[in-house]
């Protein structure tokens, strides 16, 4: 063995390295062509989708008798058609804000617990259970929400109405079960929890061990370590994670359609039934819509697309501003 290895390593290298070099150049060319092609293909696909959607939306918009942005109604199959997205935009944004307000702190808490506090065995189980939430199809969340969550929230709603009714937002002005934007927000929060948690956990685990040890060496407590080393380092990651979650919350369809009692009214009373979201409205109206009605729904979908684009753009700007903390530079 010992005698054969030198000859083997001595003689083969020259031809091998030469062939690797030429193959490498050819491979490089092929690979760069492939990746360039894929990139261009993606742009072409996106552009053609955008053109198609815009074209169909334009057909609908040109015949809309109402104002697309301010009409509180959706009667696209009527003659003349009248429809507007005001209620949908409001409902989508509000339910997503509620979902984010509930989910992000809890998700960060779970992620910190898993990465820094829990015994390893418990952390693994907990992480596993949270990830499992992501595997439940949204229609199941919808049915669970309608059959279990809605009745359970009656008590919370009464409590909020009684003690926080003065805030107007939590003033419950109509009797009725909790099929409101608030309930939808809670349901969405549960649905986006796994993605926010698992990305945040990964980011928190990436914090350089040196930073944490340095803080500990200076006499910091565990909470101070988290506050001074882990959270600043993970901030951009948590923001990215939240944006992924927000994406799901904005576009969630079946769960919202099953739980919400929609109506074309904007109400600041979050506990009252009413409102609607883009995705929920598309799911609810698509079946009975005629071709023109579908064009109108596509137009509303285009607005959701723009909304998502804006949110993602804003998130990128925030992350870019905090580049110095980003894990990518470390």
């Amino acid at each position, binding site marked *: 063995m010992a005698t054969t290895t030198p000859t083997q390593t001595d003689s083969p290298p020259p031809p091998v390295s030469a062939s690797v070099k030429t193959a490498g150049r050819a491979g490089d060319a092929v690979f760069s062509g492939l990746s360039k092609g894929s990139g261009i293909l993606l742009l072409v696909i996106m552009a053609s989708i955008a053109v198609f959607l815009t074209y169909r939306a334009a057909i609908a918009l040109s015949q809309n008798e109402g104002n697309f942005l301010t009409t509180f109604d959706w009667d696209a199959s009527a003659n003349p058609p009248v429809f507007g997205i005001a209620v949908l935009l409001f409902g989508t944004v509000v339910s997503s804000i509620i979902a984010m307000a509930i989910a992000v702190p809890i998700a960060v808490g779970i992620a910190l617990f898993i990465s820094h506090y829990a015994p390893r065995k418990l952390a693994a189980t907990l992480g596993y259970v949270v990830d499992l939430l992501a595997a439940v199809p949204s229609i*199941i969340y919808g049915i669970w929400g309608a059959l279990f969550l*809605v009745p359970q929230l009656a008590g919370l709603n009464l409590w909020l109405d009684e003690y926080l009714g003065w805030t107007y937002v939590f003033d419950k002005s109509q009797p*009725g*079960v909790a099929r409101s934007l608030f309930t939808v927000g809670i349901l969405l929060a549960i649905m986006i929890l796994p993605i926010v948690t698992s990305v945040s956990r990964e980011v928190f685990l990436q914090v350089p061990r040196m930073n944490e040890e340095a803080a500990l060496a200076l006499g910091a407590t565990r909470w101070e370590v988290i506050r001074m080393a882990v959270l600043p380092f993970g901030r951009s990651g948590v923001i990215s994670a939240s944006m992924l979650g927000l994406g799901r919350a904005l576009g969630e369809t079946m769960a919202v359609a099953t739980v919400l009692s929609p109506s074309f009214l904007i109400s600041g009373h979050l506990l009252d039934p009413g409102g609607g979201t883009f995705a929920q409205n598309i799911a609810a109206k698509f079946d009975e819509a005629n071709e023109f009605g579908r064009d109108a729904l596509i137009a509303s979908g285009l607005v959701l697309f723009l909304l998502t684009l804006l949110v993602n753009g804003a998130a990128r700007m925030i992350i870019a501003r905090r580049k110095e903390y980003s894990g990518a530079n470390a």
Partner: protein
Amino acid sequence: MKLQRKNMLRASALGALVVSGALVLTACGSDDNTGAGTNASGKPSAAAGDIKCDGASGKLLASGSSAQKNAVDLWVKNYMAACSGVEVNYKSSSSGEGIVAFNQGTVGFAGSDSALKPEQVEESKKICTGGQGINLPMVGGPVAIGYNLSGVDKLVLDAPTIANIFNDKIKKWDDEAIKKLNPGVALPSTAIQHFHRSEDSGTTENLGKYLKAAAPDAWTYDAAKKWPAPGGLGASGSSGVATQVKQVDGAIGYFELSYATSQNIKTVDLNTGAAAPVKASADSASKAIAAAKVVGTGSDLALKLDYTTKAEGAYPIVLVTYEVVCDKGNKAETLPTVKSFLGYAASDAGQKILSDHGYAPIPAEINSKVREIVNSLS
């Protein structure tokens, strides 16, 4: 140690599987609105002799109203058992979608809760070469008003009261108007929570037609597939409305009768002005449909229902669903199957199985015309 952990993971995975499996199963359970389970195991209820398969072959696609899904499923099961080599596939989506598919020429016939509108007939002429789309009434059914009020097992309402409940004017169960119709019943002062369909629906349209005809002063909205009145809560699908009514004390909602029977929801008896209040049933709905007049011209059998009928035992909140076909110019490859299948649906045997499943057969007089027209399809 490691092995143990693996086992634990496996156990929790198994547990999760069981839980989600149970969820899936209950999800299916809540949608099942027929007694089809009991029937499915039985033998086909029609003798094969009633079904004439002549010329039928291949695959027939159809699509449309979910209100008649269970009826069509029963027919399909018996029909396919009798005629081997023929496949009938009814996609239950919605009336609107069925008509759109019909006018695109992708289905042999469509099921619809409401008759074709003039512009839809115009559009159908492109598909039906030399002819046009026609409506054949095949299935009737009562729309039940279901309620959930603890301590009240029998409730009588009339059209104006129902209208005022659904337009949010009557807010408590012990309202004078309800008390007057239910002497001797102890009505609690629970708040009324009324549920309607959150998506466009033929059931909503039919209830609207009834309320507008029978209580024009209280119900001022035009009948449409979209729920018109303010207030109340929306739920998706008949099954969604039924589930909510079942769940909430003080709730009232509307859905096809089969949803009420399968979920044990109490239904309102209707005071139509007849001597006794009428209970929703296949029988009482048939009696109301018997009062309908054919308003379609030529071979079109679109019906105009008499919602204000005071006939004894006639329940006027009914839904008639049509099969939409071309009178002339059906596709050559599906025509024999369409004729043979619809012929069975309109036959005595085909109509008879309806009443066992919460549907109402079409009255004989109209039904005989349907059979004639089915025979003359070309």
